[in-house]
């Protein structure tokens, strides 16, 4: 049953470019898809470990820059008179490196997250993103700073024996994003349903208790952070090669906020949540654009967001699931946390 639904949804998504001819809409779908991948990765942290990263765009941006620089090449001076010169590599190498480097950054931020929680984690992530943004802005020799990296090549897939296929058209890019999104989805799904996923949930709900039964906080959180960052890095790489210009504005706070909106409105901690939330809030601006004044579009955007949460406070997917599928027996009606050990929780 579930498998059938999944296949149906995937087939529907795969068919879109076959009947949707409007390049503008296809473009909107592609950029939305890229952000949906970012949102899925954020959901792994927020929804399954309870750690809200408000600097998630840092990993996305790092992925974008790494990928762009790998495929464009660079020549920078390092302290001590050393010059670091890199000749352009194929974009696909950039894509893989983006995943690697973003994952590595996730590792360090994950190590930090072992020390801080809740609000403190939030601010560390915001700070991390800001510092990365300022480095991108000020390390002009490497990143060209505000002058932006331009002419980033499109991704080319090596076809063994034939040569390579450069993904230039919208349809090609659409399928590329779709495939990456599916892989990310499956990876996250497997992870959270495994025993690692349970460890994450345990930490999220009652950390003291979780460690007392032998769950390793650092390892679990770092693992989640690495995978989450790596996926975000992949999304960033797709972004760089699709938009083909990248400047420090990619690290803007509003981009993180967009991902947070996608995750929470769709339903954090549910696999489909960020996809649904992402599609809604990725495409809502497209729908609003022709019908009202620019400022009004934003007001409507905020209004829709509030309205969704008023009707479905736990996010679209979990709230609907609860309502239509099976009323979960005895979900605590009074806040049960107040009864338990860790008492007053810090805000996330």
């Amino acid at each position, binding site marked *: 049953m579930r498998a059938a639904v999944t296949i149906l949804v995937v087939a529907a998504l795969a068919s879109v470019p076959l009947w949707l001819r409007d390049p503008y809409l296809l473009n909107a779908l592609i950029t939305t898809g890229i952000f949906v991948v970012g949102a899925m990765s954020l959901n792994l942290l927020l929804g399954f470990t309870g750690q809200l990263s408000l600097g998630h765009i840092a990993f996305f941006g790092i992925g974008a820059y790494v990928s762009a620089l790998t495929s464009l090449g660079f020549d920078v001076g390092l302290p001590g008179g050393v010059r670091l010169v890199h000749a352009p590599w194929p974009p696909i190498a950039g894509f893989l490196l983006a995943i690697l480097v973003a994952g590595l950054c996730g590792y360090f931020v994950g190590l930090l997250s072992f020390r801080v929680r809740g609000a403190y984690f939030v601010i560390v992530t915001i700070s991390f993103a800001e510092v990365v943004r300022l480095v991108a802005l000020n390390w002009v020799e490497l990143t060209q700073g505000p002058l932006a990296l331009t002419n980033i090549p499109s991704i080319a897939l090596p076809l063994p024996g034939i040569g390579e296929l450069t993904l230039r058209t919208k349809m090609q890019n659409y399928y590329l994003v779709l495939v990456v999104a599916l892989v990310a989805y499956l*990876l996250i799904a*497997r*992870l959270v349903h*495994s*025993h*690692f996923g*349970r*460890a994450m*949930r*345990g930490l999220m*709900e*009652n950390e*003291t*208790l*979780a*460690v*007392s*039964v*032998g*769950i*390793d*906080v650092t390892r679990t959180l770092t*693992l989640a952070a690495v995978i989450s960052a790596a996926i975000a890095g992949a999304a960033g790489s797709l972004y760089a090669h699709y938009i083909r210009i990248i400047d420090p504005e990619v690290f803007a706070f509003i981009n993180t906020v967009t991902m947070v909106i996608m995750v929470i409105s769709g339903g954090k901690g549910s696999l489909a949540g960020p996809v649904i939330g992402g599609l809604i809030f990725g495409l809502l601006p497209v729908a609003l654009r022709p019908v009202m004044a620019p400022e009004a579009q934003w007001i409507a955007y905020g209004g829709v967001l509030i309205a969704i949460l008023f009707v479905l406070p736990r996010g679209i997917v979990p709230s609907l699931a609860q309502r239509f599928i099976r009323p*979960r*027996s*005895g*979900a*605590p*009606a009074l806040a*049960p*946390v107040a*009864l*338990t*050990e860790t008492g007053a929780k810090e805000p996330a």
Partner: protein
Amino acid sequence: MTARSIAMNIEQVAVRFGGLVAISDMSFTVGEGEIVSLIGPNGAGKTTAFNVMTGFLTPSAGQVTYQGTTLTGLKPHEIADLGLIRTFQRTGVFPNDTVYDNLLIGLHRQGRVRLLDAILGLPGARASERRLRQRASELIEWVGLERRAHDAAGSLSYGEQRLVGVALALAAEPSMLLLDEPVSGMNASETHRFVELIRSIRDRGITILLVEHDMPMVMTVSDRIVVLNYGRIIAEGTPDVIRNDPAVIEAYLGHGAGRA
């Protein structure tokens, strides 16, 4: 008492919170397979001692060794990996998960598989998963919460949550169990049943260190009792000795405790 090998050795442990001395110069041992109770007035430092033993607190002085391993510097989960598992004085559950899922989380130590196996869903990972589910059901049955297995743990009554807490500790396969006031919130009959439970745990070779204010229970179940007052050990011995120790009666039992 026969010569057993020592499971846990607490050597001259002291804990201070700012100016407040919670424990000073505490030393005692717990033998393998023994049931030792740690009692004392409120605020004597019993829970603090547990926190030191399980790595939640670093002592200001002294050290604890468990089965020959010095615990200093180990993190709580590493200590748990040695088989030293505790329960909490107040309730401790994963409130938004069902009782069943709570136990699956508690079975973490049994369910370790390689990340890649889990992500690829290899047979090893699946078999392990089946074993865990089996064991979780057993544990639920054992504490008598079958009826509540699929309710969120946070929606259970106070006493029921405490039972889940004990089941969680057992799920972690302890070689030594530290129980912090396990029967508070249970009535006499429930306590009786719990005593049986503890005995059966001990019979499986698990060492038990118990903190409890329920004197009838402590007196019936303990091999040996250590009494703390203001962070110091003021008495140590068999239940009979402790029951009649004037210092203990004065500081802790009270004169009406004869019924114990």
